[in-house]
């Protein structure tokens, strides 16, 4: 792999930038691999990278129906955080946040990680009690968290409506300073380039259409470019976990819902933090290009459409304008949708399955992007060793029937409510 550095930049500038290597190869699929990862988004590519880097397994293929990062990796609002209360989630996401802080160096690819801080706004006494409890739980788990009072928030966020008469009066906020945002496409590209350099075959424009089964063992996949055999198969397909599991004769504890996000025209720096409000149903941050990237609720009905409706668009925009009145003058640049695999407790699945040789990474609800490094790291461990790492030991596929749901919100088996 040609390393990126100030020297390589200068050297290539001398030759008019005509001699850069392609970031990854486009190989033809081999007849067989040790491991096949289905899904060339951030999670699948990260899994392949850590299989090669941490476990020395390099005879790996990542198979992608479309193009790299064209699914939810390229559709999220790029927020990275680890502000969870329950132990399983807290330790898992905190491991991920530590990986995020070194990711650019590790991959030799600028993922533009920006630990600018994530602020959860609190609008009632009950909101504040719950947030302080969560903040204390985080600190007991060794994760940074601090409470910001109204005076601090008013000073740090001059755009925010902190009037007592506001539709959502602000009482305080819970801040995680080490959290922030990253460039989502760069995460997919960085992992792809680093995995490719270690020998992983990345095969795009190749859709998996079936599983090759021998007894109870999955021994490969049928694809639009022919059958490919594999010692082990890992599924990492945000949005279509149900359909992939169906190919192996399994039913998923998942409903697919559509979530939309939107971005405004670019303006000069005005919002220094990622700001979220549970009561108003909003999260917003300003991208490095200057656009305000924001989103809110699901549409609340099953959908595979990858586009949102006007009702939610209006709801989310109204929420942002009520909190930040001066953004009402901005024009909307784009809005889009992605398919969320909503699990039955709002927590993900990184697990063995009832089929030998088949592993599952899915059910990310709408929190998959921040998990990309930790998810790939834990999934690689699970595939390589055949057993989960302690960090993902709770995220099993059978935890629901066994009564070990990890329900951060306490909403029960109602996927749209998480």
């Amino acid at each position, binding site marked *: 792999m040609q390393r990126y550095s100030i020297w390589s930049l200068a050297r290539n500038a001398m030759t008019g930038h005509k001699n850069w290597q392609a970031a990854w190869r486009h190989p033809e699929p081999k007849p067989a691999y040790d491991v096949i990862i289905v899904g060339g988004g951030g999670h699948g590519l990260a899994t392949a990278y850590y299989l090669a880097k941490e476990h020395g397994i390099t005879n790996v293929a990542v198979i992608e129906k479309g193009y790299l990062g064209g699914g939810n990796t390229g559709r999220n609002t790029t927020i990275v955080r680890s502000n969870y209360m329950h132990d399983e989630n807290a330790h898992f996401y905190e491991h991920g946040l530590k990986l995020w802080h070194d990711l650019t160096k590790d991959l030799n690819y600028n993922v533009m990680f920006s630990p600018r801080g994530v602020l959860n706004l609190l609008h009632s006494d009950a909101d504040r009690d719950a947030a302080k409890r969560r903040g204390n739980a985080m600190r007991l788990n060794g994760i940074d968290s601090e409470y910001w009072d109204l005076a601090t928030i008013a000073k740090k966020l001059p755009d925010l409506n902190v009037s007592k008469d506001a539709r959502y009066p602000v009482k305080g906020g819970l801040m995680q300073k080490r959290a922030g945002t990253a460039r989502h496409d760069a995460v997919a590209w960085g992992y792809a380039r680093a995995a490719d350099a270690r020998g992983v075959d990345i095969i795009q424009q190749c859709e998996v259409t079936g599983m090759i089964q021998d007894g109870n063992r999955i021994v490969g996949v049928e694809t639009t470019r022919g059958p490919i055999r594999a010692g082990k198969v890992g599924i990492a397909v945000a949005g279509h976990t*149900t359909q992939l599991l169906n190919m192996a004769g399994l039913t998923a504890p*998942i409903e697919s819902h559509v979530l939309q996000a939107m971005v405004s025209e670019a303006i000069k720096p005005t919002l220094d933090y990622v700001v979220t409000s549970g009561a108003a149903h909003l999260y917003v941050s300003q991208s490095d290009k200057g656009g305000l990237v924001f989103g809110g609720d699901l549409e609340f*009905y099953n959908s595979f459409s990858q586009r949102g409706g006007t009702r939610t668009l209006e709801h989310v925009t109204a929420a942002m304008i009520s909190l930040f009145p001066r953004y009402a003058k901005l024009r909307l640049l784009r809005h889009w949708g992605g398919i969320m695999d909503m699990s039955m407790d709002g927590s993900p699945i990184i697990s063995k399955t009832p089929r030998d040789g088949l592993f599952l990474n899915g059910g990310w609800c709408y929190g998959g992007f921040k998990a990309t490094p930790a998810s790939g790291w834990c999934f690689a461990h699970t595939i390589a060793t055949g057993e989960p790492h302690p960090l993902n030991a709770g995220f099993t596929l059978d935890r629901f029937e066994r009564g070990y749901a990890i329900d951060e919100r306490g909403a029960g088996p109602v996927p749209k409510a998480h």
Partner: protein
Amino acid sequence: MMLIPCPWCGPRAESEFTYIGDARRQRPDTSALEVSPEALQAHSDYVYLRDNPKGWHQEYWQHSSGCRAHLKVERNVVDHRIRASVKADEALPSFPEGR
């Protein structure tokens, strides 16, 4: 914005409705005094598993900001077309494959 045909009120805006979910799930009979492992598994599957098809989906909605009746709708979850809606306790008409 979808227009959902309410059997009582006719086509109304989606914003008047609340989504309930998959209408094909059947709660298994767990009235027996001795619950077998199979019955327990069936009940767990009923609570936690979903068919989640990518295509036509039979689902319950409630006209919560209208007549408040529950209804059963058959909707394509890929393009959001609705091809039938009936009262919640009625059966949806059957359609030939591929329509």
